[in-house]
């Protein structure tokens, strides 16, 4: 177990160095940050001075070495635009993104499990079949368009929900959360459903497929032959085994949710880190982009690790290698 964790830890370091190098080179080509920062009337001398001040006059390899040295001390640079340490800047935005992603995950799981199970247990009923067609429609809806429709219908026409922003927040341990106030929940509902709808449709299909597979196995027939009630067979015997791959996918998809939240955040003006990324790309704020992608990479690797570990906990047949 320890050896396994150590191996994974080295893997993380390796991924981080790779990601930072690629992003560094890529962002080097993406435009001139100095030109965006200074007014268009700035003279060449002013541009040069600014460049020297930011250390951008040095060769790329030297810049990267300085970056790595600072990164080892937990300093990923200072945002050109916000004049704040990027780590602080991103961590400030992280709770909003996490809140949104967790809420949409919760939404999709709560609805996907019963619907998926129903569709597997009664595959021929009209309700299940329309649910399955509905799930195909669900994976065909682009996130950004659902968001726009939500704003239009519930925000503008019906005026039920606030179309933009995060609403009132409450601070717990210095972090602002929306879900603790009624106003915050109202603001959270639409973005969370928008982000979670694709997830919901996909999970319904997955739960149904896994349940169908398990319900065909011999041990289910045995359980039925023993005279167990259908409810007991479904929930106690079948569901537990069907959930193993479902848990994995839910875990792996969480990283995707965090990444995809950048579209939802842009539409609903949700002040998370995805919106920060899109704004920073537009302003060639290189340190923010590099740091964002490194943090996302860490999140992804950590999620993968947690999923692998839970996997072995749920299913003792799988050994760690």
């Amino acid at each position: 177990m320890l050896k396994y964790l150590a191996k994974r830890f080295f893997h993380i370091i390796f991924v981080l160095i790779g990601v930072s190098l690629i992003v560094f080179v890529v962002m080097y080509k993406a435009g001139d940050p100095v030109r965006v920062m200074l007014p268009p009337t700035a003279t060449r001398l002013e541009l040069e001075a600014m460049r020297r001040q930011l250390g951008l006059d040095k060769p790329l390899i030297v810049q990267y070495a300085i970056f790595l040295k600072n990164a080892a001390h937990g300093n990923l640079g200072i945002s050109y635009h916000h004049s704040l340490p990027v780590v602080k800047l991103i961590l400030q935005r992280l709770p909003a993104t996490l809140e949104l992603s967790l809420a949409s995950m919760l939404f999709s799981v709560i609805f996907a499990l019963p619907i998926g199970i129903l569709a597997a247990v009664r595959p021929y009923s009209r309700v299940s079949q329309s649910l399955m067609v509905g799930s195909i429609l669900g994976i065909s809806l682009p996130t950004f368009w659902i968001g726009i429709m939500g704003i239009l219908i519930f925000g503008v026409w019906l005026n039920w929900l606030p179309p933009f922003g995060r609403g009132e927040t409450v601070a717990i341990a210095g972090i602002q959360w929306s879900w603790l106030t009624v106003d915050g929940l109202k603001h959270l509902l639409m973005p969370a459903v928008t982000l979670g709808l694709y997830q919901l449709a996909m999970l319904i299909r997955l739960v149904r497929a896994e349940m169908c597979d398990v319900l065909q196995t011999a041990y289910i027939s045995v359980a039925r032959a023993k005279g167990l009630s259908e409810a007991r067979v479904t929930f106690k015997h079948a569901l537990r085994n069907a959930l193993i791959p479902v848990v994995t996918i839910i875990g792996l998809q969480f990283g995707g949710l965090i990444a995809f939240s950048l579209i939802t955040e842009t539409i609903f003006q949700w002040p998370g880190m995805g919106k920060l990324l899109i704004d920073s790309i537009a302003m060639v704020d290189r340190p923010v982009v590099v740091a964002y992608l490194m943090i996302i990479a860490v999140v992804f690797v950590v999620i993968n690790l947690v999923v692998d570990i839970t996997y072995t906990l749920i299913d003792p047949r799988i050994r760690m290698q």
Partner: protein
Amino acid sequence: MAQPELLRRFWRSKTAVVGAVLMAGIVFAVMFASLIAPQNPYDLRQIYLEDSCQPPVWLKTLKPAGTTEDVEQGAIPEARGFILGSDEDGRDVFSAILYGMRISLFVGVSATFLSALIGIFLGLTAGYYRGRLDTVIMRLADVQLSFPSILIAILLMAIWGSGLLQIIVAVVVVRWVVYARTIRGSMLAEREKEYVLAARALGASSPAIIVRHILPNIISPIIVISAVEIASVIMLESTLSYLGLGVPPTKPSLGMLIKFGYDVILSGYWWISVFPGIALVMIVFAINLLGDWLRDTLNPNLGQMVQ
């Protein structure tokens, strides 16, 4: 599977028929866009700024262009009817959708085709020859798959700037992995089979074995992936275009049309973003319906319960 059997199954599946009919309608509309569309949305001579933001004609709240006297004097033509309304520049939304679908489908199909080509080639070679080449290709695939493709595509488009070629290349860069992975998997299973050994014993060269003997046997996963891929590539392209990191504004795809509409949605001009969105959902839905049927039919391991 015999051909008549396949057809019979097709007709029995309502969803597949609906998907096929929808898709046929879309392809027809796209092919004859220039004949069906009331105007050429890119011909500036056919667009009048006075027609800006007209609601759909069936809402019957046509606002007259200019003042009434202007119309009476013939200085400004009377407000024309637009089936699905008009956008800010006075462009017919219906015509823009027809031309936008063409661009969305073009990007979707060509990017999928190219990533299939590259992915299949790499998957076949990696799976057949194994060794260091296999390790390198699959490591690359692993790293790439551990990162959401939308992020990589956004970064690439940020450097390259928007453009048709750029968006196609960016999609290929992020999507070839899907093919390479699956094809390598199928190849690993196939290469141990006896017919491969037999072909080798008869003196067939490796490329000949791969292309003539193995490839035909793994064609069904390729078909199934391709259907799903076209749908997700169209979604990816529209998302990028929505963010302004996709097709150029001179060649607006459905995603970009939705973005144009979103900018004015709070002013009450909802039709500019709603209708292109419906068109986009229709395309993706039709392809997904067909893809779902293909997966159930061509993959004997899945979907036995449904038939």
